[in-house]
């Protein structure tokens, strides 16, 4: 799959933003006033920047409101609905804390649940696609949720929780990669089943229908990106979990904290880039590629 920067930025930032909102929602003794304001500014900023950037790759962003209508069948629509609900509920909760110093615990819990459900719906947009076997597994949901609460814990300064979660997310990531590497072959689709000619002999693509890459090839066949996949996986793990863990166990200081967050973001973005670049779509089969 073509790794579109707007989609990568969206899913990384909004995932972490909603994870942070979830943590803020379940605090038993939350900050109030200006302190609360700054926390919520960061969390809302991440979530909203992500949502806005996701409209950049639309052909007709001006019709985006229509995307809230098909929640009965479409995970993309459900994501939009859940995101707006989560932001509204958490907005009310945050406003009560910031302007009135009132802690409405139940609102926070509902908002936290909605935030995580939003991340779940995001993961299902990818996880539902039988055409991309690497994504088409419940593990994709586990991966997205783990990343979300890990990033959220790290940015909201829950050091001990973040330490455990950083190790856990590295673990989930490695399992997801391992399973993904054989997913396409396990599904059993090849040029034989794609053309129905497999029973008569070996099938080979002899000539493409067109002389230069079309939309399908640009969108679905991204072979170049896979060249350095193994190296990038290591880099991603080190940045996402390795560096932050080391920085967090060192005696705390704000510079280290900031560096840990930045390194984690870079690691997750690398992982998300690989998520797309390594994903093979069944359309590739028709072009004799993967």
């Amino acid at each position, binding site marked *: 799959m073509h790794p579109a920067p707007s989609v990568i930025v969206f899913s990384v930032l909004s995932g972490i933003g909603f994870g942070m909102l979830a943590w803020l929602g379940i605090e038993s003794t939350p900050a109030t006033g200006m302190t609360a304001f700054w926390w919520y500014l960061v969390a809302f900023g991440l979530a909203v920047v992500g949502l806005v950037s996701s409209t950049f790759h639309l*052909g007709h962003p001006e019709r985006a409101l229509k995307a809230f*209508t098909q929640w009965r*069948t479409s995970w993309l629509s459900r994501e939009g609905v859940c995101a707006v609900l989560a932001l509204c509920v958490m907005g009310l909760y945050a406003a009560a804390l910031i302007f009135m110093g009132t802690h409405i615990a139940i609102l926070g819990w509902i908002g936290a649940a909605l935030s995580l459900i939003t991340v779940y719906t995001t993961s299902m947009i990818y996880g539902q696609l039988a055409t991309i076997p690497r994504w088409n597994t419940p593990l994709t949901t586990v991966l997205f949720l783990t990343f979300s609460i890990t990033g959220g814990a790290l940015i909201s300064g829950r050091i001990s929780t973040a330490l455990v979660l950083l190790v856990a997310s590295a673990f989930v990531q490695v399992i997801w990669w391992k399973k993904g590497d054989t997913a396409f072959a396990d599904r059993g689709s090849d040029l034989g089943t794609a053309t129905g000619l497999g029973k008569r002999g070996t099938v080979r693509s002899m*000539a493409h229908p067109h002389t230069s890459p079309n939309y399908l090839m640009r969108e679905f066949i991204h072979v170049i990106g896979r060249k350095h996949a193994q190296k990038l996986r290591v880099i991603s793990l080190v940045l996402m979990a390795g560096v932050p863990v080391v920085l967090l166990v060192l005696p705390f200081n704000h510079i280290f904290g900031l560096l840990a967050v930045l390194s984690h973001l870079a690691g997750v973005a690398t992982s998300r880039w690989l998520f797309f670049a390594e994903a093979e779509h069944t359309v590739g089969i*028709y072009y004799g590629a993967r």
Partner: protein
Amino acid sequence: MTDLPTSTDKKLGLVIDLDTCVGCHACVISCKGWNTENYGAPLSDQRPYGEEPMGTFLNRVHSYEVTPKGQAAQTVHFPKSCLHCENAPCVTVCPTGASYKRKEDGIVLVNESSCIGCGLCAWACPYGARELDQAEGVMKKCTLCVDRIYNENLPEEDREPACVRTCPAGARHFGDFADPESNVSKLTAERGGMDLMPELGTAPVNKYLPPRPKDTWDDESILAPFLEPVAEETAGFLGWIDKQLSRLPGDTNKMEGAE
């Protein structure tokens, strides 16, 4: 709503005969022509005369080579357009309701004025049957020429998809698969019509007819016996001439077995 109908009254679709298709791409051109000049946003081209030209097509023809074990390779031209799947994954993923499958005839269509061009339906289609038009930013796909097949302004013989009407080899057939007596149902039954990637559970309506088996080098030839000499011995007037001519010197082309 992007719910799929539980069943459709008709199942309109195509049968594509891989035995007959000669790979001329005429259907590609007629499809592009009809769908650029008629319903919906025109099918745009990018850099048509420049480097790496690119464009939107609703139907494309691949060429494959099948090599049966121990036999000669065979070329198979393979036209591919939307299969109007009964269990169309492209419809249910659509967030806006732009993509839908019609209850009355099973045709899968895109309402272009609702499409936000998110591309998710193209991700969900296993066959590469949907292309996002780069100029219009909306999703384009085969309409089964819905603006021809019911179009009473056209002469009756033209009320079938442009690609079917054009095909010079008769490799594309249009009809209703819900009717067991239709031409497409009969062809599918007779020739063993196949689904593409059945393992993905999309239940395509369009069927592909496999190439007929070709004869092999070891087979008994049906025609060879007819090439046997009719008469071993020459007789009569022609026989006399033959004998006289054979006596003359300079015969380079001696028949096998002749002394």
